[in-house]
């Protein structure tokens, strides 16, 4: 009985931690959007990069988006891929940061999935009701220090990890797992 109460408590604690991680990140992102508007583009990117690094599990995302090819990559290629992936995320966030500042985020539901994962659902709303609501789903897991990091984000059901994986794996397959070709294609669009 006591054991059961403890499990329920730790489960609700984890959910709360997951939710507050997302809330905190959104608040920081909105603050960033206002604070960094007058900065030089490079400085702004650097600030956003620091913010993202704090909240996402880049190691996991890199593995998840390259599938079985990850094991075949050299350490240098792995590091380069992480940098390129981070750069892509920064670019995407940068483009939407100004819009985010004018919209509001409302958490809706969170749930525990399996042994390690937590789903945090929320809505991006336009206070003027001129734009339709956007459904978001954040997938998180605790790292070794016990803090929660983002593994994937689904916007209206479209998973960013799945899309990136489809793209990276397609290039790797066509080039017999050659990471350098993938990296050159990624750096070309950066």
């Amino acid at each position, binding site marked *: 009985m006591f054991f059961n109460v403890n499990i329920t408590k730790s489960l609700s604690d984890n959910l709360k931690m997951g939710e507050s991680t997302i809330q905190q990140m959104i608040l920081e992102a909105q603050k960033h959007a206002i604070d960094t508007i007058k900065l030089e583009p490079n400085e702004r990117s650097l600030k956003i990069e620091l913010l993202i690094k704090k909240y996402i599990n880049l190691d*996991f995302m890199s*593995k*998840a988006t390259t599938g079985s090819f990850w094991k075949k990559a050299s350490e240098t290629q792995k590091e380069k891929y992480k940098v390129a992936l981070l750069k*892509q995320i920064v670019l*995407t966030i940068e*483009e*939407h940061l100004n819009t985010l500042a004018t919209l509001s985020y409302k958490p809706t539901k969170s749930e525990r*999935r*399996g*042994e*390690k*994962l937590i*789903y945090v659902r929320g809505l991006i709303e336009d206070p003027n*009701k*001129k734009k*339709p609501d956007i459904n978001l789903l954040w*997938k998180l*897991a605790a790292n070794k220090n016990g803090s929660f990091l983002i*593994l*994937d984000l689904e916007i*209206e*059901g*479209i*998973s960013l*990890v*799945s*899309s990136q994986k*489809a*793209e*990276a794996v*397609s*290039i790797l397959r066509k080039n017999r797992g050659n990471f350098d070709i*993938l990296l050159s*294609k*990624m750096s*070309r*669009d950066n």
Partner: protein
Amino acid sequence: MTKKYKFLFVKFIAALFILNGCSNSTKFASENRDPFEKINRNVFQFNKYVDQKIISPISKTYVKKVPAKIRSGVSNHLQWMDTPNTIINSALQTDMENTILASAKFLLNGLTLGFYDLDKGETVIKKRDFGSTLARLNVSEGPFLMVPLIGPKTTRDLTGTILDRQNMATLSSNSIDDLSLAEVPINIIDKRSKMSKTLDNIYLSADPYVKVRSFYLQNRRNEIYSEKYIENKNNNLDAEFEKLLD
């Protein structure tokens, strides 16, 4: 419709069904099932060229010159014109709630020819088309296709789109049919203006064709299969994620 045209139309729909039949019958086909990839990639290049040279500049001018209120009215009207398809297909899918809500909204907004949303977005209607009806009848989605000037589709959705167009042509009088022909380019420009940032971002990615395919299939499956599909997809992804976290 002339006899010759009717015959060609029936033949085309039959060919699409055969294409569907040739595909394996799994309902949630893998994202990589793209047997026509080589042709699709060429069509994608053509569509991208047309988009960048013609559609995108027009759409940018449209956003710049036309006031937001008028654009919103045009967008509302185009959605309203498409509502009969939702009504018919919701009924065919025995989704009575959606049929009634869509019918009520269609009649209400009909007072302004759909240019103004009189219930101010209060009634949420799920968009239904013949592609989703075919999915409900367990027709497999079939191979992925990149259709010239139309964009990404599966064979099932292309069949659905053609039948939806056919439905509208049968339902409407000649004058409305002419009007809807004029609306096709406006519809394209309206949609392009809403997707401006997303499309420009896609073109910059390492493999834009795969990104479009991935976005389209994920989005379309979410629309059609809703809760059931999402749960199935998430269970698979959860297992994969947990393994990677070990």
